[in-house]
């Protein structure tokens, strides 16, 4: 797959896809999307990046091992559920705060962090699968 056309385009496409995935993640609470879909898009991005440019650059780009990213996602999701313990609410109860940043109300909430956790799990796990499969191809 070493063709100029492919290898040149894909890195930019990857950034676009990652960006789009975060967009889908963040607006998922109000529009179609969410952590899972976002995560799938991002994982697709890394998968195609790996196909085009090889697995090693993707691994270096991610810095952490994909499974560690996935694990951090699960950790984040669970901790965002446990957070409600500290305000005397039931497990996973959504806690919301609307701090004013740069003039706009930003909704920060445990469901958001939960969704980010979902995103990270999906990105990590699916990328790990795709990369591992691509890697074996080359040896």
């Amino acid at each position, binding site marked *: 797959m070493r063709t100029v056309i492919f290898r040149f385009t894909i890195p930019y496409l990857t950034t676009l896809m990652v960006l789009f995935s975060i967009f889908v993640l963040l607006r998922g609470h*109000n529009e179609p999307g969410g952590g899972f879909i976002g995560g799938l898009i991002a994982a697709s991005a890394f998968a195609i990046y790996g196909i085009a440019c090889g697995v090693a650059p993707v691994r270096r780009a991610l810095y952490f091992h994909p499974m560690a990213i996935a694990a951090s996602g699960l950790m984040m999701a669970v901790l965002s559920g446990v957070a409600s313990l500290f305000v005397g609410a039931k497990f996973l109860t959504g806690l919301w705060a609307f701090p004013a940043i740069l003039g706009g109300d930003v909704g920060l909430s445990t469901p958001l962090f939960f969704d980010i956790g979902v995103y990270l799990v999906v990105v990590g796990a699916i990328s790990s699968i795709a990369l591992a499969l691509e890697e074996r*191809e080359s040896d």
Partner: protein
Amino acid sequence: MTGIEATTGFLALALPFIAAALAPILTRLLKQHACWPLALAPALAFLFFLQALPAVADGNVLLFGFDWIPSFNVRFSFRIDGLSSTFALLITGIGTLIVLYSGGYLAGHKDQGRFFSFILMFMGAMLGLVVSDDLITLFVYWELTSITSFLLIGFDHHREAARRGAIQALVITGGGGLALLAGLIVIRELLGLSSISDVLAAGDTLRDSAFYVPILILVLCGAFTKSAQMPFHVWLPNAMEAPTPVSAYLHSATMVKAGVYLLLRLQPALGDTTLWTTILPLFGSVTLVVGALLAIRASDIKITLAYTTVASLGLLVMLIGVGTEAAITGAVLYLIAHSLFKGGLFMVAGSIDHGAHTREIDHLGGLGRSMPITFTAAMLCALSMGGITPFVGFLAKEEIYYALEHGDAYHIALMVAAIAGNALMFAAAFVVALKPFVGQMPETIHHPHEGAPTIWLGPLTLGVLGLLGALFYGAYHAYFSGPMASAAMGEPVAIEIGWVPHLNLAFMLSLLTIALGIVLYVFATRLRSGLADLLAAIGWGPDKGFDQAMRGLLRGAFAITNFLQSGRLDIYMTVTVILIVAALFGPMIYMDAFPALPDFPTLAFYEWTVLGLVVLGIFAVVIAKNRLTAIVSLGIQGFAVALIFMLLGAPDLSFTQFMVETLSVVILALVMTRLRLSAADHRPLRESLPDAVLAIAGGAGFGLFLLAVTQRPFDASLSDFFERYSYTIAHGRNIVNVILVDFRGIDTMGEIAVVMTAGLAILALIRVRVGRKGERYPDPTEQTP
């Protein structure tokens, strides 16, 4: 019973177990001398029962216990009456001697501690068995005796015969035990009573119930297997693989008598019916005669003794079956006598083995001079066994003949069996006790010698006791046989028989028996070879049958298992699908729950197109000639399903379905790149048609049930709730997402755990490769990388 007495009682019951726990340590410290402190346990228990004897002899019943498992209505309760008291005294008394005997007999054996432990555990189990009042508690002890005897018989585990004997005993007695359990549970449930005392007090209820026959058969299965009745007797001679103290103990006083104990115990509740008086004497008499013949046939003195035990048990069962007061009295007298003389003779056999290093009767002779004490003990026991006065064996035999002297065919037949059996046993007794000690000493025997005091103490004591019992028969009847017979009859029984012969029919028959016995003794060698020829001609016996049954069981199990567990995934899957189809159609047909005939659906044409795409897509997958075509075709239905979701108002689903479908193809392509599969995997019609029929049935079932479900009214309250509070409380406009992260967030948590774990599992699959071949068992040095 007072609190202190009860506590002492529990302690007495626990003593053997405590000693068993201490035995390994004590033996390590004291070597064979550990037998002395260990013998203290049964001795103390013996004293406990001895001190209770006067009260019991007065007809009192001592009851003590506590609620063990109230939820299951099981009490840890005990009943000391004449029956259990005498048994307990025999168990603990002979037990004390056996422990001492083992100290000498197994001196220097590296597993002596283990042996002490097992035999003491066995003692504890046996003791518990005979004093248990609760039916379930009784069974617990019953099985404990099986378990411990398994360990004892297999003690010399390096020999296959010992292992076989242990398994055989466990299989036969364990199997019977399970039947007994069933019987006891039926009794419990039927009467609503859980203690033996209550059952005995329930009168004729059991005999009158519709369940009498099954109960009796189940209980007899337990008793007959344990008490080695034909054809279950085979385990007993094979149990001689155990060290001699075990044989002496298990096969004289104790384990084999457990069945007899049970019959005596339940006789008042279950006995005295036609069935009882038919089955028991039938089995008993056959066992008596066959056992006695086999005893003569055996050339190993231990085996001879084992078969005489079988015969004796037959005699006991026969007498219990007759069930008259005299018969029970005879049984009781014989039981005690047998315990004494047989325990002694087994120990004698052990001493001979110990001193002369053989048990083959043809290789023994002339030991009397070098082993005088053993010879004495042997003669004391043999005289008792032969029914010669003034020994307890005489009292028993007189009483037995007295019990059987009726003119009807039933009693005459039994009498004939009794005389034949007794005569044979007489001969066998002297074969064991006399032959080895008299005549010329064969050259094969070197330096025969008397054993340590612990070795001759046991047999001598038992022999002497057999004499004393008869001499002081008044006290004997007052404290031992009388209360025992009373308890077994369920009413007071007075026993009068003494050691002074009276000239009556019973005595005449006794003389006849002795005369016959002498003749048989003289011709014993010839009889033995004759019987051996006969058995060789028959060529089959229950012992061989046991092996055949075991092999048959294993082969049968193997065949069945191989049939059911074919190792083929397609067969497993077929079975699964068949069951699914049955589950779908069974209730639908059985309860006529088919859906109503639906109207033809009215859909927009593009909806038809999309639905049609699904059908076309799966059709394409099925007809695809190779896997790759199938994989590419798979995309069609995936896209079409995503479009269905979009058309029906599920954008999130559609979104996800598109992504998943794409990623599925990507991963499939990545994997397929690595696979080099044989080109064609298309199945011939012959193979695929049954699958297709099954699959169509399954699909139709799922579809029909779905239709039926959707034709019912629907309760959408959950979704109404979510719609109402999605934005107002959970601040989310996308209700589906709010359900995922808030309303049902924990589902999602589980779901991402699945995703993460799948990722890790796949990584492990791809990365971990088989190392060295044969590296099945982990190498602990590999702990650090």
